């Protein structure tokens, strides 16, 4: 690569207002999320966890979309693939693994929910349920409250493309647009709803096209291009902060693993397809970019890799040691207790 080309490429993240430190940190979170994801599957296969559902392949767009947010002020309304997004928002790997092991100290639910249902007010991450799409109206409600209370909070909500077929998804876009709610409607389109392909999910070729039907901008970005994912999120975020309303963002992402540990994607995806999606892995594409612009040298790469391995090992030990919930506690918190 000539010096000139390198300078042009380098300008890309800086041109977006991201420092070298920013992109190194973004890469760290992508690596951390992937390592945590891998660990969860290993633990499930080893019989240490009942079930796993996670987001390998989705990490690049999630980290990028979260990057403009003010971690303390803004809200995340996640779904079950939001591993990387929850990490950026402030949850630790141990916080997520406590949920995987259904421990009493699992911050998301105290071991009440299946793994992958993250949330706690301390991080302003809304509690997650399993029916897809239901979280979209919640995000609109949170954003409406933010507007009415003049808190300046922006809300980011995410769902897969399968969830966009639900009525709640459409109702939320409509309501959010009418009231110009400060919300980013994210769709992580991996082109599979468990096994159902995109062409059987919708007749339009892009989810983003639907934004026009609700009176808001719709944009799409390649989930393997982390910087482009950031660029569109940044614009949408600034728009929301200016009071100009919501944006629909579609990220095209590869789903690298099976839907969950109860699914075998080899039954409905060909070898060729699986090879193809692996070439779109944002971990690899972002690393290639960072190396090409000289932001990620061998020493830095080793530092990040070592740090992540250490953190995941420590988190696994910590979560594994934590106690299971007491059966008597299952009757509690149906309603508010005491006065």
């Amino acid at each position, binding site marked *: 690569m000539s010096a000139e080309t390198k300078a042009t490429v380098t300008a890309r993240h800086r041109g977006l207002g991201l420092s070298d430190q920013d992109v190194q940190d973004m890469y760290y979170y992508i690596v951390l999320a992937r390592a945590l994801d891998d660990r969860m599957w290993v633990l499930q296969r080893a019989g240490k966890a009942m079930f796993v559902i996670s987001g390998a392949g989705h990490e690049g767009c999630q980290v990028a979309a979260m990057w403009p947010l003010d971690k303390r002020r803004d*809200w995340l*309304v996640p779904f079950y693939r939001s591993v990387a997004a929850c990490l950026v928002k402030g949850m630790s790997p141990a916080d997520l693994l406590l949920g995987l092991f259904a421990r009493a100290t*699992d*911050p*998301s*639910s*105290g071991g*009440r*929910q299946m793994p992958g*249902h993250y*949330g*706690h*007010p*301390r991080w302003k991450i*809304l*509690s997650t*349920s399993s*029916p897809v799409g*239901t979280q*979209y*109206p*919640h*995000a*609109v*409600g*949170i*954003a*409406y*409250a*933010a507007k*009415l*209370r003049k808190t300046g*909070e922006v809300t980011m909500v995410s769902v897969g493309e399968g969830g966009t077929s639900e*009525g*709640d998804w459409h*109702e*939320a876009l*409509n*309501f959010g647009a*009418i009231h110009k709610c400060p919300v980013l409607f994210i769709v992580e389109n991996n082109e599979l709803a468990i096994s159902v392909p995109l062409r059987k999910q919708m007749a339009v070729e892009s989810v983003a096209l639907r934004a026009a039907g609700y009176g808001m901008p719709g944009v799409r970005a390649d989930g393997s291009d982390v910087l482009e994912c950031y660029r569109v999120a940044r614009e949408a975020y600034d728009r929301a902060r200016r009071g100009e309303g919501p944006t629909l963002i579609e990220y095209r992402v590869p789903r690298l693993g099976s839907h969950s540990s109860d699914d075998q994607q080899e039954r409905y995806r060909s070898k060729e397809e699986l090879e193809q999606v692996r070439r779109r892995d944002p971990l690899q594409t972002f690393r290639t970019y960072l190396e090409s612009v000289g932001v990620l040298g061998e020493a830095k790469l080793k530092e990040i890799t070592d740090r992540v391995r250490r953190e995941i090992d420590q988190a696994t030990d910590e979560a594994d040691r934590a106690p299971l919930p007491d059966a008597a506690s299952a009757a*509690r*918190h*149906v*309603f*508010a*207790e005491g006065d």
Partner: protein
Amino acid sequence: MPELRYIDAINQAHHEEMLRDERVLVMGEDVGRKGGVFGATMGLLEKFGEDRVIDTPLAESSIAGVAVGMACNGLLPIAEFQFADFIHPAFDQIVSEAARMRYRSNNAFSCPVVFRAPYGASHGTALYHSQSIEAFYAHVPGLKVVAPATPYDAKGMLKAAIRDPDPVLFLEHKRMYRVVKGEVPDGDYTVPIGPSAVRRQGKDLSVFAYGWMLHESLAAADAAAAEGIEAEVVDIRTLAPLDRGTILTSVAKTNRALIVYEDNSFMGYGAEIAALIAEHAFSDLDAPVMRVAAPDVPGVPFAKPLEEWFVVTKDKIAAAMRKLAAY
């Protein structure tokens, strides 16, 4: 004390609570410019503005779901469903989301939403404007369900529901709106969610009813009294969580139980009261538990003779009282 219609008591509670607490807002179809199809939210838009009195799109699931999000971020929304018959698209949001928010987050989140729904058969409102929906929702732990029968309770319990830290389904039998009148204090008061109320003392049998059925039952009790049957009438104004004590105390006193509800008989709300009495008051009973409820057809039919065949009236209740007293 001024005498108000049931609908006016509901309206007054809205006005007072919105004035008292700026976190309270109202949302639903036609709640703003029109003041609600029954007038429950009349005058609110003019006083509190369109940010707090939201005429929503015609989409019930998002009315509930957006309210859930608002409640999780510091507001106290009152979500009106125009008719209880139209609440069904919001079932998932109420049952899977609002009612489970506290439990599933291990007490980290709460979801203080009031869902208001006018229910029940009025005159000529047929299959889709007459439904009794309480059995679906009273089945759900994490959701409180109330059905006040007097203007005093309507105002006091709506205020209690708005201030409650958990989701409340507030059912208003629409036949009461303009027909039922009663004394309602001008100032602030609440009627707690939970306790039932004995509306008429009696020694021969106990009647358990709520909403409009309470009024039909009281009228039936008057008719039975003329024949020497003294019925005790208990107002089950909170359906969930149920005040079991008042029911069991009454059965221990009268030894006979009649349960009245307007919903289909099969698996209706009254079935739970019957089960409660069978489990916990078996030895108090001198007669089988009886129920007066609607026939098991899919809805209230429209034509007058069909509707009369369907609905539970004071005459049908009085007939059951005679049968039970004679057992």
